[in-house]
């Protein structure tokens, strides 16, 4: 038998006669070799590093049966205009075979302003649905039974209020809080790092989060309390290793905060879930998901003393990379999205959103979102990629990349510890600078054409006419929301509303759990803006360190 090492040297010699062996990098800036072999995974130990699906360290998947037992949830992030407009879109998506809901809120809702606030002018219903009170939420889920469907809500600073609205809608439908299923994003650390939709400073924000963890473990046991998100970190320009490391570092920070607040790690950790990006480099992305599972399981067990298996699992949602879509030749985005979605599936995702081709131009049209959903259905039912669990395991390249990403993440954890932890590193602008630098490097590569973006810096069509219909939101939405708010404020029991707000204020000033107070405010039809204003008074507002 031929010695593999010498064989490799021989091959390399032949290869380098006509071809450069180095100089090829991926979008993360990682140098990629033309060939990987046994020498690249010499230290790999199957039992220790991989294990079987559903077995520690869960590298191959968090469940024994994975997609053979249950396909991923097809969950298109969606919301625009009024609650009525979005309710119609949800019914459309459910009719087309979508299996879970995912709510996109407009910027005023995300930032805790009512639709009639001066800062909301021009933004109402634009990039998501406008929700001002429980009234809007009742309309949003009209004829959608909350005991049948699970709902993910992309909401962070005001996550407690939107969760409260959802629980109240359930109450009205006769579905108790222990039966509702879903997710709030509720990941404020990545807001400071990347998505930048913050309201309060880190300390009170972390307190709200631990209140939610405690409340849900007693009253909303099927709810995913934090969706620890790398998606936005990546969209802001990070590399794959940075996405992996910063996301998991945020996750560990929540775990430490929960433990510090006196909670049993095995009581809240099983309800933590994750949200990753699925970017351009097919293999690196798959390795990233595998590394995430392994790192999280090891740390949760070894460092945080979790004993329950559910506490060790990286259950995650994936979204294809919005930042890779192009305004030029938008139909090409269908293909980009399909490849990215496939890496999410091969990486063992539990839930998936596929972007629509028109999202660099506007919110998706019905036609575009249907194609995006069909992309997932094609993957699930035609390509056969869901038939075998973790099919790329054992590949020299994939296992090498998985190890590499783990190593790089560990190096970042050390660096973050040296800086004094995640919150301190945010204050110092560490993550923000790392991400801005990576984004700028990538942009320069595109401009130097060392990275090709099809339709943008190569394969360009001169004087291209873009010929797809786009969705337009008009100012009717802002008018309607403003009128509805006026009506709400004149019809509700204002005495009860202000009593509830006073109780929230005094709870915020003390240490009692805020969730019951927020639920009382919701039931009294206090608006989101009213609740946030009370907390802004008590907690103050965050100011960002400016770095680029």
């Amino acid at each position, binding site marked *: 038998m031929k010695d593999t090492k010498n064989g490799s040297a021989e091959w390399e010699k032949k290869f380098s006669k006509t071809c450069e062996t180095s100089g090829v990098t991926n979008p993360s800036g990682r140098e990629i070799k033309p060939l990987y072999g046994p020498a690249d995974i010499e230290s790999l130990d199957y039992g220790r590093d991989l294990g079987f699906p559903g077995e520690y360290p869960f590298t191959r998947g968090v469940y024994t049966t994975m997609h053979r037992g249950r396909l991923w949830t097809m969950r298109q992030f969606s919301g625009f205009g009024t609650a009525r407009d979005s309710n119609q879109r949800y019914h459309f998506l459910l009719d087309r075979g979508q299996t879970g809901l995912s709510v996109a809120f*407009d*910027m*005023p809702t*995300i*930032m805790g*302003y009512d639709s009639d606030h001066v*800062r*909301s*002018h*021009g*933004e109402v219903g*634009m*990039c998501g649905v406008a929700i001002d009170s429980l009234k809007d939420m009742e309309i949003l889920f009209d004829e959608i039974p909350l005991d049948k469907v699970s709902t993910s809500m992309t909401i962070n600073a005001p996550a407690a209020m939107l969760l409260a609205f959802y629980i109240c809608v359930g109450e009205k439908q006769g579905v108790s809080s222990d039966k509702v299923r879903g997710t709030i994003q509720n990941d404020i650390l990545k*807001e400071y790092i990347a*998505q*930048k*939709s913050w309201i309060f400073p880190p300390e009170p924000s972390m307190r709200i989060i631990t209140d939610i963890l405690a409340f849900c473990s007693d009253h909303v046991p099927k709810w995913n309390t934090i969706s620890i998100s790398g998606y936005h970190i990546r*969209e*802001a*320009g990070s590399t794959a290793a940075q996405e992996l490391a910063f996301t998991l570092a945020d996750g560990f920070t929540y775990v430490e905060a929960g433990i510090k607040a006196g909670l049993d790690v095995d009581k809240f950790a099983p309800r933590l879930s994750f949200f990753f990006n699925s970017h351009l480099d097919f293999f690196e992305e798959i390795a990233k998901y595998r590394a995430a599972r392994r790192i999280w399981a090891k740390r949760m067990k070894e460092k945080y003393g979790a004993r329950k298996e559910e506490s060790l699992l990286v259950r995650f949602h994936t979204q294809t990379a919005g*930042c890779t*879509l*192009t*305004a*030029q030749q938008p139909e090409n985005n269908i293909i980009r999205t399909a490849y990215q979605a496939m890496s999410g599936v091969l990486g063992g995702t539990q839930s998936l959103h596929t972007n629509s081709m028109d999202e*660099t*131009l*506007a919110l998706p049209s019905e036609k575009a979102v249907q194609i995006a959903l069909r992309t997932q259905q094609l993957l699930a039912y035609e390509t056969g990629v869901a038939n075998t669990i973790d099919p790329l395991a054992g590949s020299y390249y994939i296992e090498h990349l998985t190890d590499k990403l783990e190593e790089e993440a560990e190096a970042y954890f050390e660096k973050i510890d040296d800086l004094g932890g995640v919150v301190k590193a945010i204050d110092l602008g560490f993550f923000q600078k790392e991400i*801005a630098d990576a*984004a*700028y490097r990538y*942009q320069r590569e*595109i*401009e130097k054409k060392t990275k090709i*973006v099809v339709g*943008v*810096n190569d394969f360009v069509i001169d004087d291209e006419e*873009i010929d797809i219909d*786009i969705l*337009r*939101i008009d100012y009717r939405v802002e008018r309607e929301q403003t009128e509805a708010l006026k009506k709400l404020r004149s019809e509700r029991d204002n005495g009860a509303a202000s009593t509830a707000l006073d109780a929230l204020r005094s709870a915020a000033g003390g240490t009692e759990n805020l969730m019951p107070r927020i639920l009382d405010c919701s039931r009294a039809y206090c608006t989101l803006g009213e609740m946030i204003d009370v907390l802004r008074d008590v907690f103050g507002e965050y100011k*960002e360190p*400016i770095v*680029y």
Partner: protein
Amino acid sequence: MERKIRVLVAKPGLDGHDRGAKVVASALRDAGMEVVYTGLHQTPEMVVEAAIQEDVDVVGLSILSGAHAVLFPKIVDLLKERGAGDKLVIAGGIIPEDDVEELKKVGIANVFGPGTTTTEITEYVKKEIASRSK
């Protein structure tokens, strides 16, 4: 010595997408301009105040939430009100073609959409400012 071109890169509105604004700010800086970045969540009044305080030649606005149709014209109006209507105002973001025409009518000199290179922006700014100082 020739005065460097001074640019304010601003994020009016509520959206937190600052990747584009920061990339453009870095590129303008690397092209030899003095760049001031406002940070996020600015009101039109805050942007105009900063533009005047910093005595900039150029105001670059970025919005990705759809609020451009309201906020950009407001900024242009406020600049005029405060006697600073001569500044070059340019913009970028997720801005549909129909809106671009409207924005140009109200005084946004140019709108740079997705896929624009930073070189196009820096060259444009240099050329415009040079033609103005003639």
